[in-house]
């Protein structure tokens, strides 16, 4: 394995431990960088140490002590140096290896609710995934300088406001974990939902989110929602290659070439989705994972188990009532039971006015009307959806459908 790859793999673990030891994000990042520079120098000559991560941590820690010694405010740093020297010359029972909990501590700190959600996302990508400021800025269409500023402010707040570096106690774990899972899924969706933008950066975001999902599962294997989220991401990502055709046009689930779905990822996702539901207490992610698994299991679109999917959406709707879930439920009912029943549910939802600005409501309604052969009504709804849509590939898809129903009238 080359050193770059090794470093990329070891970096998050080493960084998480260093932040715990040094209690300073910036210092930890800097000295880890220096330790890696030393590794590039030494390892090819002397061989890679048995535990590269521990080597990086201990080298970086010594660098940190040197730095603090050299610092002008020597007196002010005395206590810190004493503390660090102790950590550098550990007592016999001190584990000189990164604790598995370190990365869990780090993710809970990065996703602390006292930070704005977009800051949580950026900080997680920077520290846990090792993405550069430029990469994160490009993914979120922000100027690199603005993103750097945002990260500096966040690290400042963690330090000055005393945001703890620890896994929350059991009484708050579920609530805080919800925030962590939301950040991971946001990273995934940022890469998955948009079909425009830099494809490479977007694929990278999905891969990082899945990597974070795996990390969380390895640390919290018994939490249903953690497993459910990983399942959901793997299953959605398995369809990545077929969502857009060669001309860059959107392909709906129904029309995708299922032979090109990633079977390995589906098998893994299915097993995880199953595991998540079996654990009981299936929530937001576990239920969506189960729905994604049902889609993946259908060899052809016509074989989709819509009644089962509608039942899962009904459960999801009861646990997490939201108009978007209600819309998905209505669409599943239309496909699984009767088109007119689904249509009635959508019309009910329409009357609440909650999804007024959401293009997928008229789009879903148009889709049912088209299947019912009510083409002129479908055309009206496609036109409404076109007024609301913002993404270019979706706009072209809706225009295509509109032309179809207009021709069929």
């Amino acid at each position, binding site marked *: 394995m080359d050193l770059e790859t090794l470093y990329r793999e070891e970096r998050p673990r080493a960084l998480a431990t260093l932040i715990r030891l040094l209690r300073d994000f910036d210092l930890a990042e800097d000295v880890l960088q220096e330790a890696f520079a030393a590794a590039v120098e030494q390892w090819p000559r002397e061989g890679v140490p048995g535990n590269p991560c521990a080597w990086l941590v201990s080298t970086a820690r010594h660098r940190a002590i040197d730095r603090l010694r050299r610092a002008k405010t020597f007196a002010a740093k005395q206590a810190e140096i004493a503390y660090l020297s102790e950590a550098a010359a550990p007592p016999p029972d001190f584990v000189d290896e990164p604790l598995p909990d370190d990365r869990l501590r780090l993710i809970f700190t990065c996703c602390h609710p006292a930070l704005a959600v977009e800051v949580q996302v950026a900080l997680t990508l920077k520290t846990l995934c090792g993405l550069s400021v430029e990469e994160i800025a490009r993914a979120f269409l922000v100027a690199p300088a603005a993103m750097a500023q945002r990260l500096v402010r966040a690290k400042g707040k963690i330090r000055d406001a*005393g945001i*703890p570096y620890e896994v929350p106690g059991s009484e708050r774990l579920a609530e805080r974990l919800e925030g962590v899972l939301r950040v991971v899924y946001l990273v995934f969706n940022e890469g998955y939902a948009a079909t425009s933008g830099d494809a490479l950066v977007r694929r990278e975001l999905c891969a990082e989110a899945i990597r974070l999902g795996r990390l969380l599962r390895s640390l919290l294997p018994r939490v249903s929602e953690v497993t459910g989220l990983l399942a959901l991401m793997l299953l959605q990502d398995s369809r990545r290659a077929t969502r857009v055709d060669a001309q860059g046009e959107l392909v709906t689930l129904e029309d995708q070439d299922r032979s090109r779905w990633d079977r390995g990822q589906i098998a893994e996702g299915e097993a995880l989705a199953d595991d998540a539901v079996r654990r009981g207490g299936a929530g937001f992610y576990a239920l969506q994972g189960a729905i994604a698994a049902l889609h993946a299991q259908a060899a052809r679109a016509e074989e989709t188990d819509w009644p089962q999917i509608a039942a899962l959406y009904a459960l999801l709707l009861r646990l997490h009532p939201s108009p978007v879930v209600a819309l998905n439920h209505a669409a599943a009912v239309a496909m699984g039971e009767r088109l007119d029943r689904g249509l009635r549910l959508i019309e009910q939802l329409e009357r609440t006015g909650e999804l007024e600005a959401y293009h997928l409501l008229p789009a879903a309604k148009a889709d049912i009307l088209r299947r019912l052969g009510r083409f002129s009504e479908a055309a009206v709804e496609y036109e409404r959806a076109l007024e609301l849509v913002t993404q270019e590939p979706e706009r072209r898809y809706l225009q295509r459908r509109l032309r179809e129903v207009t021709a069929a009238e």
Partner: protein
Amino acid sequence: MKYLLLIYESEAGFAGMSGAEQARIFEEYMDYTKGIRKSGNYIGGEALQAISTATTVRVKNGKTITTDGPFAETREQLGGFYLVEAKDLDEAIKLAAGIPASRTGSIEVRPIMPTPPIE
């Protein structure tokens, strides 16, 4: 770490309450203060007179300028504070969530900047 918990509330809302309701809230503050004294978090805390009693002071070119107010048109006004000792932000947030006004107004949690002691 030390934190200042700034209590923001609608003065008009409080003024509009019955005497019995005001007494009940006062009671709640007494209980809360006793609780955080006992737990060792309490350093200090006071309630402030209404914003109508406030005076703003500025010095321009060596001259002291005072103005009546501020009578900002915000919905909530600073009505009091607690200075507390807490292990970290999570503990400070927990303390803030116990203040009666957290249900009707809002609490701003501000870490105190560490400064060298003055001789």
